[in-house]
């Protein structure tokens, strides 16, 4: 059954948790020098698979074969010894230590009979290994001073230092800019050319098609197919992942003529200056721009999270008090933040409590929380939004990213705000849940809510928006009406003028 030419073979690997079969007899193989995608929706079993490969979890049954030798992975050290390295989505280093110290963390090079760390040798070896990957990284620099992309390269360097044959990357691009992604893609190609096998987990189809040779698709813990990506289309892959065909929905505008929110001259004394625009009832206003153009910052000012220096926001003709999120929410503005874990959820609390936070008053009777009402309403809300399972008493941290996002959106529906601000609403969310979030945004607009959506994915912005506002260097460069919306138009307005004319194709990549 195992292919002699394969570097890694998984044969009938299952993982059973109490009550859940997270992986069900999954078999696939990875060749030497291959970049192998691992695809599936959240809950499909990708994380479980990676955890088994890195021996964080042990398989309930099945066999793992590396270079023809069956291996037993019971502790993370076994995985490392077997030549498997894992680049986690959330990078695993100690920010206050230097690059070299992090590289040799746990196995320092020593001198004086093991008593002292040999910093000079560590730094020299670190420099040698980094020279191949990114010579700009100084081994003596503290990790937290590096950009995320560079921190990731340090992790890769660590894998190379371990002499890993198989490098698994879990959502490596979730916090990279497009140009950083290009650099990473080139690096992955070089590693593959040196004979390393790369397992690449990502939700972003375009990346997978660009980076990977083949891909294995999982759904509900079962193996669906291993496909050659040069022989298949994106839509076919997505259909295999979700088990149905997601049609590219046509955009329908629900915008009405009346203006609900007017933003004038908004500045934060730093990046954001002179931001002004209006938002119609039932409108979805896309907010595009390069990373660092101030999109998130603008949303945070409107939501009262950061203090505005000058300017005003009026809602239905009344000025909004922007002193705190609380006052902005009272006026009817709610933000669905980009970093769900950090800014969105209170992990250990039940879904229902997370939903009720902005509108405790609605669920309070005689000064106490009306549990029955809260439970009933939040359950109904989450059922309507397709949360799975719709158990609102469970801690929100135990749900997938897509489900958490639904709860945060549900929070604002419960609070009945008029304006919803979405910051990268589908980041880190699988494709199935993504299309549900799209549908939800459209439904909200139809019901008369007004919406601003920040997204770095141009197809997403174009699919969702009635108008697109483009930010450039902290101010609003253009507002495109429906008939003016195109990738080219967005990009042309997003690029800082001082840099001179930039070819559209190149600029597109920088989005």
């Amino acid at each position: 059954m195992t292919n002699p030419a394969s570097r890694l073979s998984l044969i009938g690997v299952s993982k059973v948790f109490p009550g859940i079969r997270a992986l069900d007899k999954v078999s696939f193989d990875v060749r030497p020098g291959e970049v192998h995608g691992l695809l599936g929706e959240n809950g499909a079993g990708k994380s479980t698979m990676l955890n088994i490969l890195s021996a964080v979890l042990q398989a309930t049954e099945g066999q793992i074969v590396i270079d023809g030798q069956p291996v037993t992975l019971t502790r993370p050290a076994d995985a490392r010894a077997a030549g498997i390295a894992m680049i986690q989505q959330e990078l695993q280093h100690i920010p206050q230590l230097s690059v070299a110290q992090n590289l040799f963390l746990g196995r320092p090079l020593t001198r004086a009979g093991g008593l002292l760390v040999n910093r000079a040798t560590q730094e020299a070896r670190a420099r040698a290994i980094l020279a191949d990957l990114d010579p700009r990284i100084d081994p003596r620099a503290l990790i937290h001073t590096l950009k995320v992309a560079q921190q990731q390269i340090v992790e890769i360097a660590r894998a190379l230092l371990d002499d890993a044959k198989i490098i698994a990357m879990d959502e490596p691009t979730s916090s990279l800019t497009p140009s950083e992604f290009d650099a990473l893609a080139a690096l992955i190609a070089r590693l593959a050319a040196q004979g390393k096998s790369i397992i690449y987990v990502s939700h972003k189809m375009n990346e997978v098609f660009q980076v990977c040779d083949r891909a294995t698709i999982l759904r509900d813990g079962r193996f669906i197919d291993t496909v050659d990506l040069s022989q298949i289309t994106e839509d076919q892959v997505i259909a295999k992942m979700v088990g149905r065909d997601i049609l590219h929905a046509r955009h329908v505008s629900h915008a009405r003529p009346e203006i609900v929110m007017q933003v004038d001259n908004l500045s934060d004394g730093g990046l954001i200056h002179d931001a002004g625009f209006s938002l119609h009832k039932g409108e979805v206003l896309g907010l595009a721009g390069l990373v660092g153009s101030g999109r998130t910052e603008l949303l945070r000012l409107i939501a009262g999270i950061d203090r505005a220096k000058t300017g005003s926001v009026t809602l239905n003709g009344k000025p909004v008090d922007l002193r705190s999120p609380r006052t902005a929410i009272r006026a009817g503005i709610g933000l669905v933040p980009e970093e769900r874990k950090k800014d969105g959820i209170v992990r250990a609390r039940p879904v229902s409590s997370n939903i009720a936070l902005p509108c405790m008053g609605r669920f309070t009777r005689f000064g106490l929380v009306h549990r029955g009402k809260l439970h009933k309403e939040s359950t109904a809300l989450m059922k309507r939004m397709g949360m799975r399972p719709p158990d609102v008493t469970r801690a929100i941290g135990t749900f997938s990213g897509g489900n958490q996002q639904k709860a945060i959106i549900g929070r604002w529906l419960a609070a009945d705000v008029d304006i919803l601000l979405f910051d990268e609403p589908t980041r880190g969310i699988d494709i199935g849940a993504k299309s549900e979030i799209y549908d939800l945004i459209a439904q909200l607009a139809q019901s008369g809510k007004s919406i601003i959506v920040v997204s770095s994915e141009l197809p997403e912005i174009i699919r969702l928006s009635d108008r697109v506002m483009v930010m450039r260097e902290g101010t609003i460069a253009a507002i495109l009406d429906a008939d003016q919306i195109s990738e080219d138009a967005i990009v042309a307005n997003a690029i800082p003028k001082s840099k001179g004319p930039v070819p559209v194709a190149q600029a597109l990549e920088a989005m």
Partner: protein
Amino acid sequence: MTDTAIPTRTAPRINLRDAGTFFGLVLIFAVFAVLNPVFLTAPNLINILQQSSINACIALGMTFVIISGGIDLSVGPTAAVSAIVGATLMIAGVPITLAVAGAIATGMACGLFNGALVAIAGLQPFIVTLGALSLYRALALIFTGGNPIFGIPPEFRSAINGLVLGVPVPVIIVAIIAAILWVVLNRSPLGEYILAVGGNPEAARIAGVPVARTKIIVYVLSGGLAAVAALILTGRLGAADPTMGNLWELDAIAAAAIGGASLMGGKGSVVGTLMGAVILGGLRNGLTLMNVQAFYQLLATGIIILVAMLIDRATRGRA
């Protein structure tokens, strides 16, 4: 005390952590019951509750502060200042109820000062309350010249030392406070806010939780409860001592931690803290009954705290 403190309304589900603390409590009491026949008699059990009541009172306030992600190291000196204000007012002839209110207001004012420095000035709770610990102790010592205030009115003393249906008054006071706090934590919007602020302050702020106000309230609560504990002790001793409450903060933190409060914030239980206080009180009582030296009592306390934390760690499920 623990049982009377729990309102009989049905909780949505059984708190496993509380069940674990309860099991530990039963285990320790069972061991002492076997070792010493006096331990499990009704008078001795009441005695344990009585001895635990002051720490339980402080620990309940501490639990709220800890859940909100903070810590209050200043509870002992807050108690001392409150006791001195209360005693001074009583001796000056102020009606006892007003003097009691004055003492509690003093404790709350100490808490307000801590809370404002934490929530508004944005200083770290550990440092703020460490500073306050010295500050309030100094105020108590300066005001009294270091001498205890004697001459507490006998009416006040007999009220504190009395029994209601055979149960000491301090136990009843703490039981009532605990019942109210249980409702606040588990059934009130403030409880939701405290848990949210401790669990993720930034997410709570963005969700519209009044974070600063919530933090201030827990410190005011802690200060107020320190004053209640100080009044109980003043009534029992018949004097207000400016050195009162030395190291109270440590016992209170221990009771809260044994009861399941996480020093990282976002987690804790009223019932658990009460049981934690009774575990510590029972341990001391049992060891004293067996004539174990004080040094070994300290040893046992340390071991219990660490074992409780290890079990906590080991039994915390996945997710």
